[in-house]
């Protein structure tokens, strides 16, 4: 697109898409902002007028707010840690030549194709059920008292379920990165006297840093808004109420759209804080 003419033509042709995208993004955002300043109770009188910052102060001063932020961060952090550590290990294992490589790779990727609701239900009923679940049988086999997963270890359970869903994504991205590592670099390091763990630490891990950054950022975006997994397992009980879930409860269970919208704005702020924080730690990996 070198000439003036082709540039302006390009702009003309891009315009509809850009306008559509902007509308797509801006309309919900503006509506959220609008409702967050209204007292809007659909079943108790509808739109009852301007509310000022009332919704914002009420949302943040609710006793459920800070625990929900904490829960959100624990789930996001826990899942990120597990998926990245296991993802790196799995990627390195899958990169090894082995029998039935293609089938194994498809199996590893499979959980990603299972819908969140389905996988959460499968985990809830098949693995974590305190009476009939596989874990219960396993615990009993070793003579231990089965754990009431979703009530006693509720957060751990959710982190496990969500990690299981996202591990394939992390593995896939990291596997492509592992495969793009020049094998001569590893051989050079081997000749330079670096044993396997040092080769991993000094050569493989730095090579993966960019892919890890990408996994981190993409997963964070999606993990901040997980919902189905909580809805079908604990229903937000036992300390698993994330910010997203709290907003859902405010809007649909308490039928308070204004309060929920204010929560939505807080969620946007939280997402931005997390994003800036992540960019700070890992951002430097992206520009080299």
């Amino acid at each position, binding site marked *: 697109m070198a000439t003036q003419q082709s540039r302006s033509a390009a702009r003309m042709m891009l315009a509809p898409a850009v306008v559509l995208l902007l509308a797509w993004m801006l309309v919900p955002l503006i509506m959220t902002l609008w409702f967050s300043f209204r007292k809007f109770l659909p079943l108790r009188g509808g739109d009852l007028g301007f509310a000022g910052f009332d919704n914002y102060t009420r949302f943040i001063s609710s006793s459920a707010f800070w625990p929900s932020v904490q829960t959100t961060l624990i789930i996001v952090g826990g899942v990120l840690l597990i998926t990245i550590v296991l993802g790196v290990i799995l990627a390195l294992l899958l990169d090894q030549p082995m029998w039935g490589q293609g089938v194994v790779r498809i199996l590893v990727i499979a959980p990603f194709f299972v819908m969140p609701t389905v996988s959460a239900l499968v985990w809830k009923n098949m693995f974590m059920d305190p009476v009939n679940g596989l874990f219960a049988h396993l615990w009993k086999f070793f003579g231990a008292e089965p754990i009431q997963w979703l009530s006693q270890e509720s957060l751990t359970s959710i982190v496990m379920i969500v990690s299981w869903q996202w591990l394939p994504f992390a593995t896939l991205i990291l596997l492509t990165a592992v495969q793009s590592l020049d094998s*001569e670099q590893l051989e*050079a390091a081997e000749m330079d006297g670096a044993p396997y763990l040092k080769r991993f630490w000094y050569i493989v891990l730095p*090579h993966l*840093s960019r892919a890890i950054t990408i996994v981190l950022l993409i997963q964070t975006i999606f993990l901040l808004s997980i919902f189905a997994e909580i809805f079908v397992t604990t229903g937000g009980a036992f300390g698993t109420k994330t910010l997203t879930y709290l907003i859902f409860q405010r809007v649909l269970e308490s039928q308070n759209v204004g309060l929920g919208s204010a929560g939505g704005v807080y969620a946007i702020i939280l997402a931005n804080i997390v994003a800036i924080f992540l960019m700070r730690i890992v951002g430097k990996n992206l520009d080299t």
Partner: protein
Amino acid sequence: MGRITLKQVTKSFGDVEVIPPLDLEINDGEFVVFVGPSGCGKSTLLRLIAGLEDTSGGTIEIDGKDATGLPPAKRSLAMVFQSYALYPHMTVRKNIAFPMRMAGVDKAEQKRRIENAASVLNLTDYLDRRPGQLSGGQRQRVAIGRAIVREPAAFLFDEPLSNLDAALRVGMRMEISELHTRLKTTMVYVTHDQVEAMTMADKIVVLRAGHIEQVGSPLDLYREPRNLFVAGFIGSPKMNLLQGSEAEKRGAVTMGIRPEHITVSATEAAWRGTVGVSEHLGSDTFFLVNLEGYPDPITVRADGEVSLHPGDTIHLIPDESRIHRFDAQGLRIP
């Protein structure tokens, strides 16, 4: 010390035998070049010596000690790869320091050796750059620097100059030769380029399909190629190989004569032909000459400023004492 002995070494990948049993002796301080066409197993042989591939049979000794089963790090050999294999996220300094860091060399000594290597290789100004910010020749030098700080028993080079442009290649060729003169460490150098082999080697090992065709000094190989393959491979431009009556007259199946051993004559002489394409290099001119009775043209070297035109008839005098004779198996007839 860096004496490497290969005894009956073989290597197969699956069913394919890439290196049939092979014996080779590399003496301490020698500059040995493995040369051969692409795919003949040069890299494989070098990697066997390095320990990056396991042998399928035979033994490799380094300084008289069996090293066949030793991991690469324990062989005290340093390797320079064709792709340089620098660590992209480390600065030049860290790249060069890496092997010493792995060996636990103390900091002061590391610094001394890095500075020494950097000054030898003209890298002092680039120590804090990353490999991505260097030119091809500089990267090459970093790779060499990383090898020399280890003070290895021998250096292994796998086609180190093939990614450089022609001018740089000539320069680096000199630098590596100088390095060898200075360090007096054994060097094993792999290339497919016979010019590199001729200019750098103390000893050339000509390989074809994993077989050693001939081992000798560059001049040995030039003067007395043991067979047709070596005759055709060593020397630039290539040796002319003729069959038929001229060869039979001299009691051979194939006769070979290098372009530089044929003289252009003004008067009637042994051979007559017509001039085809010519290449003027200034110092020399190479003509393709179509000899009467031969389908393929031969190459003839003449003085740089000789003026001959395509289609001219010329007379040629082969230097009888420099004619190579080969039998039906392609072996040299003494």
